[in-house]
Every structure is written in C-alpha cells, then in structure tokens.
C-alpha cells in the first residue's frame, strides 16, 4: 500500500474526464464482440504512448471477481466497469491516474490524490487527456462540446469531486441542510462510492452537477471555493459538539478506541464508523498526527474485498475465519500499538 499524506476533513480529491472516440458507437451501443475489438484497438495504441509507458493494464475478463472488487474499493474502477464485457483499466504506477476503457464512455480518465488543490489535479488530468487526444479523435461538437453516452456528462465531460469526512455535521444533525444548500449551488453530495452508495464513516463525495455551459476551470474553482466553506462548517459543528459537553464526545472516542483495540468481530460499516471517530479525534489532537494517515489506509484495507484478498494471498481462508473476524484482527493488531486517547490537549 502506498503511503499517502493525510489532511483533516478532506480525504482526497478526484478529477475525471469522459471522452469518446469520434468514429465508434458509445460502448453501450456496441455488442460485446465490438466492444472487445474497440478495447484491443485502444490498448494497442496506448502501448505506443510515451505517457502510458509504465502503466499497468488490467482487462476485466482476466481478473477474478475478488480482484475486480479490490479495484472498486480503491476507486480505480467503477462498479459498472466490473460488470462490463470488453472493458479494461489502465493504472499508473503511483495508482493516482487511471483510465477506464469501455465503461459508459470509451474513456474515463481519472486522477485521485490526497492533495486538495483541485486546480493542480485538473492540470494533471488535462495532461492525461491531451495524451489520449494526441492518439484518438474525440467525439466533439461545437454546439455540445465533448459528446458522452449520458447527457449528464456532456460538454466538458468533467466531474470534479472531493471526498470529505464530515462526522461533526452528521453528529450535529446538520448534514441535510448542508446537502440542500450545496444542491442549490450546483453541487451534488453522495456516499463515498458515488450514486446510490451509503455515507459510511461520515465520508461524502461532493461533486459538480453540471458539465455543460461552464468552462472546466470554473467547475474546479466553484468546488474549491465551496470546499473551503464546508471545512469551516465542519469545524464549527465540531466546536458546537464540544461546547455542548465534552464527556459524551470523549466517551464516544474512548469506546471507538476500545472497540477497535479489543473487538473480535467487526462489520465493514461498524469498523468504518469507529475509524471515523478516531480520525476526527486525530484532527483534535487526541491521537498523534501520524495515526490519521494510517486510519485513511485502514478505511481502504478494512473493506471486504481487501480483507479477503489479503488473507487469500498468504493462505486460503480457514473455516470460521469470517471476514468480520479478520477485520477485527487487523484493527486489533494496529490499535495495540497506538497509545490510548489523550484528552489533555482538548
């Protein structure tokens, strides 16, 4: 697992471009055989590309279900790609850039980073997009911009999003209000796995609603501006929670620590909720700063496909070694090395 830097509240940022080849039908209107041949053509061309020289290609049909699920949990592919015949993903060595091939569109170019500077990430995404544009002629109309299978991605094909950790607003019962306000500003709030997913661990994905009629820079700027406001709101909510009474909050943190350190069975959701509390406590100085970056990794590693993959790599799952048990073991091992919460800082 690559060590990533970690920041309070904003977990990661993502920039995604949707693009299609001008001369081909969109993937959804191709038969599996046609999709396969488009994929072969794309991968053949990418092999010669300098930009993608060190990237790894995974063709969906070559991957076991568990491996596909692992990529989904790492946000390197979507659930939709997993289900597609004739689909592939190209991943950069640092795992920050990925290009999904034959998802809903021929290309879904994505950059994810712990960095919250969306404008900087956008400039990197533009490089990846330009690298593809030098090889393929994209479907483009002067009236509509870049043409996509779904009109909700039309125009710039750009989706800019930030994964934010908002336990304060959730505990304070403010999340509904925040969601409504953001919707009115042209932003969408979803669970961490996008459309239809739950916000486990109080982690939300905030992204632009519109892709047409707004220049790309403006889309990134708008989200960046609002993120600043969301971070402020979250800090205020946390202040309010502490003002209302420290004991109930400290009790929650201590119980989360106790559970992660001693529990023998933990479900994915319960684990994520406990990690969420510890992450919040890190932001408040209750745990050392270095714990937070490990928590961010544990959010990923404690997901079901990761647990299964980790176990099966060494030795096959033994009877009775349920995923919840293995997850609890993973947490116990780590939290036995972490000092108990220190409330003197607060």
């Amino acid at each position, binding site marked *: 697992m690559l060590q990533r830097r970690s920041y309070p509240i904003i977990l990661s940022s993502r920039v995604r471009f949707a693009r*299609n080849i*001008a001369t*081909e*039908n*969109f993937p*959804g*209107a191709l038969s599996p055989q046609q999709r396969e041949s488009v994929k072969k053509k794309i991968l053949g061309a990418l092999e010669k590309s300098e930009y993608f020289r060190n990237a790894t290609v995974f063709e969906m049909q070559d991957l076991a279900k568990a491996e596909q699920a692992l990529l989904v949990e790492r946000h390197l592919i979507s659930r939709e790609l997993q289900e597609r015949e004739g689909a592939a993903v190209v991943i950069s060595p640092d795992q920050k850039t990925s290009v999904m091939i034959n998802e*809903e569109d021929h290309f879904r170019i994505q950059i994810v980073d712990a960095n919250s500077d969306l404008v900087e990430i956008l400039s990197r995404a533009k490089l990846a997009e330009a690298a593809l544009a030098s090889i393929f002629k994209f*479907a483009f*109309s*002067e*009236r*509509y*911009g870049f*043409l*996509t*299978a*779904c*009109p*909700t991605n*039309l*125009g*710039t094909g750009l989706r800019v999003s930030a994964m934010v950790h908002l336990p304060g607003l959730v505990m304070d019962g403010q999340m509904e209000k925040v969601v409504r306000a953001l919707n009115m500003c*042209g932003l969408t709030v979803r669970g961490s796995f996008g459309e239809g997913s739950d916000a486990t661990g109080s982690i939300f994905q905030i992204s632009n*609603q*519109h*892709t*047409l*009629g*707004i*220049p*790309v*820079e*403006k889309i990134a700027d708008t989200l960046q501006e609002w993120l600043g406001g969301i971070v402020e709101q979250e800090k205020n909510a946390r202040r309010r929670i502490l003002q209302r009474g420290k004991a109930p909050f400290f009790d929650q943190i201590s119980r989360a620590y106790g559970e992660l350190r001693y529990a023998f069975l933990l479900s994915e959701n319960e684990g994520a909720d406990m990690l969420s509390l510890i992450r919040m406590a890190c932001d408040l100085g209750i745990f050392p700063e270095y714990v937070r970056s490990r928590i961010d990794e544990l959010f990923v590693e404690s997901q079901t496909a990761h647990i299964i993959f980790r176990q099966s790599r060494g030795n096959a799952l033994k009877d009775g070694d349920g995923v919840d048990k293995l997850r609890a073991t993973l947490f116990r091992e780590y939290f036995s090395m972490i000092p108990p919460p220190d409330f003197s800082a607060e």
Partner: protein
Amino acid sequence: MSEPLKCDICGAPATIHLTQIINGNVRKIHLCEKCAAKHDAADLPIIKFAEMLTKKILGEKIGLKSASQQTPEKICPGCGMTNILFEKTQRLGCPQCYETFSRELAEILPKIQGSSQYLDSAGTQKTVANKRSTKKTAKEKSPELSVEQLKELLADAVAHEDYELAAKTRDIIRSREKKKTRRKTVPAKISSPELSKPTGTRKKKGDK
C-alpha cells in the same frame, strides 16, 4: 344497455377506469379492484400508472406492443438508437445521436445541465464562430461573438428549439445594441449596415 366493462388484466368486472390522452390519442384502461390494488393504482398518478400498465402489464397480457416494440418516431442512422429507447435509458448510442435527438435534448438539457451550449476554457461559445471559420476573428482572439454571429446563433437556437439559449442570446443582442447606441461616437468594432441603421434609431429612443 351495454355489458359491464371487464378488467384488462384478469377479465373480472372492472370498477376502476383510467383514461389517458396523449397527443389526441385516447387510451382507456379498466381494472377490477383486486388488480388495481395489486398494482397500487391509487398511489400512482394516472398518467404514470397508465404508462406503466401499457408498457408492462398490458403489453404482456393482451399483446399490446411493449416499449421496445412500439414504433419509434426517430431512429439514429449512426447506431439505430430510437427515441423510445433514449427516453427509457437516458443514454445515447453514438455521436450522431446528438443530431438525431436534438429536439429531445433541447428539452432535457436545460433541466439536467442548466444550459444547452458548450463553453470552452476561454468561456466562448464556439458554434457560429467556428461554423464561419473566419481566421480574422481567431486572430483577434475576441472572446465575444459579434452581433451578427449572435443573430445567427439565435436563429440556430430557435431552429433547434433551444428557447433558453435563444432567450439568452436575444438579451445579449439587445444589450449590445443598447451599448452601441450609447457609444455612438466610437466606431463599432463589428457592425453590419443593415443592423446599425434601423435598430440604432429605435434603440436610442428606448435608451433615454
């Protein structure tokens, strides 16, 4: 006088009668209480329910054509996508679909995107400028479209039934023309003789 109407689904005497009128075509659906309750008739708006019935239940039960069997009004020559399938899936099949279904898009784009016109990084609408492919304007790097170009865009928007864009364009033209009469002494950068004469005098009056 006449026989009691029968339920379209099970044939029992019908007690619930739904009437749907689309483009002058009247479609009637008759249901017994049991079938109506089974399909939550009371909780659904009539049109939605009638649509659901015709598409799913009636299609299967009495041999009416289902959505995929209905005769489409439009078929994309590029990929074979039909207006019916587009409406159902909200997905297009190929780049050419955007021309084939421009009317449908003009209706949905303002709702889902709040706009119907692409803007590039410089914030320019490329439609007309590029259609005319005037090297001059590219050289000048003017981010604004001329009144003439705007008028073309307006005509284009009306032709595509993109009334939102049309209204916006019309407003820009109006404000430009107002400005032009205000700066009467400054030679207008882009003006065509037929535009400046009549509108100039009229707008001058309105300006005061």
